[in-house]
């Protein structure tokens, strides 16, 4: 729903970093996207194709590494991946939960020429 702004940021960061490295072409952008972050890769790709036009990022492929949601039980400290939307601890059934992974949203690296 709000991928346009995010994609603008991706293009800006990639162009700045590639510029610093004096690259002439960006061939791939490696992104890390938490499962909970609510961004849709296809949608980011769609905006990217139009926003990167006529820049050195045009035609670059976007690679998404998805990070599954990981939760920690505040009661017994068990670490688990939720099976459904009901977040309860598989060990002690407590519903007191902390999100430990799955909110990531960053550019990990660029491949350039």
């Amino acid at each position, binding site marked *: *729903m*709000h991928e*346009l*702004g*995010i994609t*603008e*940021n*991706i293009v*800006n*960061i*990639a162009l700045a*970093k*590639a510029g610093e*490295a004096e*690259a002439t072409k960006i*061939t791939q952008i490696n*992104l890390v996207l938490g499962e*909970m*972050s*609510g961004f849709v890769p296809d949608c980011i790709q769609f905006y990217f194709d139009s926003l990167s036009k006529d820049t050195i990022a045009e035609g670059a492929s976007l690679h998404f590494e998805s990070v599954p949601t990981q939760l920690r039980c*505040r009661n017994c400290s068990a670490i688990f991946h939720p099976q459904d*939307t*009901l*977040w309860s601890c598989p060990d002690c059934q*407590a*519903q*007191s*939960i902390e*999100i430990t992974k799955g*909110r990531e*949203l*960053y*550019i*990990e*690296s*660029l*491949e*350039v*020429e």
Partner: protein
Amino acid sequence: MKRIEVIQNIMEANETIAGRNQQLLDRHRVFAINIMSSPGGGKTSLIVQTMARLKGRLKIGVIEGDVASTVDAEKVQGEARAVVQINTRNMPESCSLMAAMIESALNEMPLGDIDLILIENVGNLICPSEFILGEHKRVVISSLPEGDDKPTKYPLIFVDADAVIINKMDLLPYLDFDIAAFRGSVSGLNPEAEIFQVSCKTGEGMEGWCSWVLEQVGSHATER
């Protein structure tokens, strides 16, 4: 072919502006609360009722975020020291307020003459959870007709909330909303969150909420 390590948060641009907004607010000793809920949850009613109760005690400004219209700005106009309406329809994103929109709105606010800014976000439980604005506290309203399962369906917005308001308490006799279950799932996700049960229509529970607001504004003012 060369690989460049980046490790840069994609939300950094928004977070940088949000930080700037907060510095500006702090310089003027203005406290800001970001109010979020689904459409119809009672954000505008809460703002109107809060202003009515805190009249004479706090000078309140309002920033209204909506996809379109000035309907809400007109509703809060009477009691507010200043109102700025943001319409997100023509912005790159329309589903949430973002820090840059608040930055422009703050330029139009008489910050020297305001103690508290109530920011009414766009009605949505998903997108606003991704964007900080520079606010000091984040408040989520959940109203009884929405059902008691919202924290389970939209956990992120509850995880980051400083306070959660259960609104439309006057409808409790007519609905199957399990207050204990709702409170349990909010506390499970976020043990620190304050939970208030209110009805903006009857005024039930508004005193507790308003005391909390006064307390937050007071401790912010003495911190600086």
